[in-house]
């Protein structure tokens, strides 16, 4: 590989941390979903980098990554459906303001 494996792993780790920070800090629910997507993408980069450098059948990591992409898309779809349903009732999408057990 023209770029050593560790550099790809460090790139994945940086994107993971940025996504983690976003999940913890964003108020808007859709912002939280975007940060979760960042985490899943960093995992994909890790998987593909490992499969390229360490395995004789590079398709293993790539197939795993395809499954992760599909599951991430599914998670985002359901998450956004919930956000839209919440907006319809409470007229807000900020995580701070949804703090009642029953409305």
């Amino acid at each position: 590989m023209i770029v050593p494996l560790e550099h790809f792993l460090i790139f994945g780790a940086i994107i993971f941390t940025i996504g983690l920070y976003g999940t913890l800090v964003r108020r808007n629910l859709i912002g939280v979903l975007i940060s979760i997507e960042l985490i899943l993408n960093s995992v994909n980069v890790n998987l593909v980098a490992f499969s390229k450098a360490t395995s004789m059948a590079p398709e293993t990591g790539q197939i795993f990554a395809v499954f992760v992409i599909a599951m991430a898309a599914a998670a985002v779809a359901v998450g956004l459906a919930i956000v839209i349903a919440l907006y319809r009732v409470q007229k807000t999408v900020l995580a701070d303001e949804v703090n009642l057990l029953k409305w």
Partner: protein
Amino acid sequence: MQFAIYALMVISVVWAVCAVTLRSLFHSALCFTAVLLGIAGIFVVLHAEFLAAVQVLIYVGAVMTLVIFAVMLTERLTDVSVRANNQQIWIGLLGGVAFLTLLIKVILVTPWPKHPDAVAATVMTSENTKHIGIALLSQYVFPFEVLAVVLTAVIIGAVVIAKKDKPA
């Protein structure tokens, strides 16, 4: 050549930082789209062309469309002046930096089992898609079918949750 790859990585990190800190959600979604395109570029560098095309097609084409639809349906124009982050900024930053330092130290110290033959094996072939297809239907057919069931359940679930209730 390596300069281009490092430049791509640095730009992706910059867009990722913009995606989690911008106040307007629409701009944050657009910066995230740029990150996805950068990651697709990294997949091409790693000789995973099918995965790069699938990433652009599904993530940029479908998932981001969904996210931007949701942003447009739920954002009011007055929200641009609302604070984007809650009070846990400093703890988040501190924890993030600590976690990142730990990860980088571990990555640099661990002896990864790199296979020199593995690297050469993929450069020669241009049948990436064919091998993925064969493996998906022979060795990984069970997760494939389970994924199909899960996606069907997700479609039905999302439609049911987001439907308007009929007036009684």
